[in-house]
């Protein structure tokens, strides 16, 4: 994969997805993540996207995409339709997070969730010392025009998985330039989790 201009989270997810697998990307944008997967890893890809301009971008890349919002789009898919359901940088915009993750785990063997960490040190600084709602690289919007409706930390998400009986298969913590090994809830600006359903 050409690594220039490709964000760290996309690179990480690209390496997670196995060649030849079936992938559903929720909130796929113009297919920036799906396209290299299809091209290099022969993935069978399906996107879901609400923005019609972005859909034209996907179709230009030869990607299959449904014009729909994430929350309404999952019900009709049969169980285990996909090897991976990706929910990258879009979970924080979803109102019924619990339902979406539950449905994603039903239709996918694994669910890849990527989100900005609200407890990142820069966010904490802004809130603590400057008394302002955090605006950072991974949370770039001002309070009045942010599409985000959910603000969570890595610790919050781990706790959520535990309570909901969701198994975390892999966890990757990303700084602005590289992977973070220590104190991720403080030092990581983004997190990527690979989830699966716990066996009954």
């Amino acid at each position, binding site marked *: 994969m050409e690594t220039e201009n490709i964000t760290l989270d996309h690179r990480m997810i690209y390496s997670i997805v196995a060649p030849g697998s079936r992938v559903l990307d929720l909130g796929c944008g113009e297919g920036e993540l799906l396209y290299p997967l299809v091209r290099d890893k022969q993935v069978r890809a399906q996107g879901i996207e609400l923005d019609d301009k972005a859909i034209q971008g*996907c*179709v230009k890349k030869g990607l299959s995409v449904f014009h729909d919002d994430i929350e309404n789009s999952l019900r009709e898919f*049969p169980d285990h339709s996909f090897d991976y359901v990706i929910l990258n940088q879009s979970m924080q915009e979803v109102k019924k997070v619990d339902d979406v993750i539950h449905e994603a785990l039903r239709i996918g063997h694994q669910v890849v969730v990527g989100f900005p960490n609200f407890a990142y040190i820069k966010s904490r600084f802004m809130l603590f010392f400057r008394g302002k709602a955090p605006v950072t690289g991974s949370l770039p919007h001002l309070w009045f025009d942010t599409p985000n409706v959910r603000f969570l930390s890595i610790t919050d998400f781990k706790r959520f998985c535990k309570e909901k009986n969701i198994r975390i298969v892999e966890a990757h913590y990303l700084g602005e330039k590289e992977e973070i090994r220590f104190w991720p809830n403080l030092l990581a600006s983004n997190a990527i989790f690979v989830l699966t359903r716990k066996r009954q």
Partner: protein
Amino acid sequence: MINMKKTKQEKINNSVGIVETQYFTFAEPGNEFKFESGDALGPITLAYETYGRLNPDKSNAILVLHALSGDAHAAGVRGEQDDAGWWDDMIGPGKAFDTKRYFIICSNVIGGCKGSTGPSSVNPETGKPYALDFPFITVADMVHAQRRLIDHFGIDKLLCVAGGSMGGMQALQWAASYPDRVKSAIPIATTLKHSPQQIAFNEVIRQSIMADPAWRDGNYYGHGQPEKGLSVARMIGHITFMSDQSMEEKFSRRLKNDTFSFGFEADFEVEGYLRYRGANFVKRFDANSYLYITKAIDYFDLSGGRLIPHGRDIDTRFLIISFKSDWLYPSYQQQEIVRALKRRRVDATYCELTSAYGHDAFLIEAEEQTTLIKHFLDKTFNGYLVADRHGN
């Protein structure tokens, strides 16, 4: 309209040029065409046109399917005085259906009146038009007849079947009846089944034709069309093809003359427009064909798992397009198609395009449809690698 933005020279440059309608006859006596109703009839003629060139392995053929009042003349002109075909903005060199790369076929439906066998055709046994002796038709009958034409070309698998409105129903029926013979389908502004509202409009349309005494129980041939009834029928149709917004933009409450007539003249421009459209339609479309075809689309129903019969996998790819302001075939009906495909894990793309033109949008909004269709066909024809070479 996209059309109007182009200069005349540009339009000529992008056109397929002079075309000729051709005819294919099959189902000779003894081997009659069997209709879904159980009736049989032959011979059957289909009028068709083709654009572009069929490649040696016959893998680049696209069947374009027309709507209720359409015909085989989808692109180009048939002579100096002729109007361009009904999808001329979409079919031609470099257009959505690129005639430099693909071989496009369009045929008039069975039951129609534009060169294909229908109620106005002469029954060879009686020497008179069939009129209501013509068998009732269904969308499946239209598709089965087209299949004979595709066989005639020796085409094993169509690259794509595409059309809007009733054309979209035929595209869906092709995928349902002959999944092994269509690589992809593009149903636009269409549905798996008519809602009661759509059936109701068609019933009013039929009643207005049949209520005209000039209809003579369908035996008006030799006496002239039931003009009043047929033109009112078409006026109803035109109202449903537009949107509140497009009518406001096109007519507002503008008057034809400066003052009210205080009579039942056409005072408003919108009245004049509907009357003009109605009167024009009478000259070009057979009333009985309108009755038969509206009934066929009311009968059409591929809901409840009939689009892809159970126990069968299909590898047909789909591109489904809807338009926000289309209230005759609202987006929820296209989303219903998408849901049926999701349930069967079929590779599909769905896009709702923003347009103010209502149901007419599929004939008018060339630009965004072109982007979607062009790249979808490219992927279907060439796979990913070539799409990449074309530079994204």
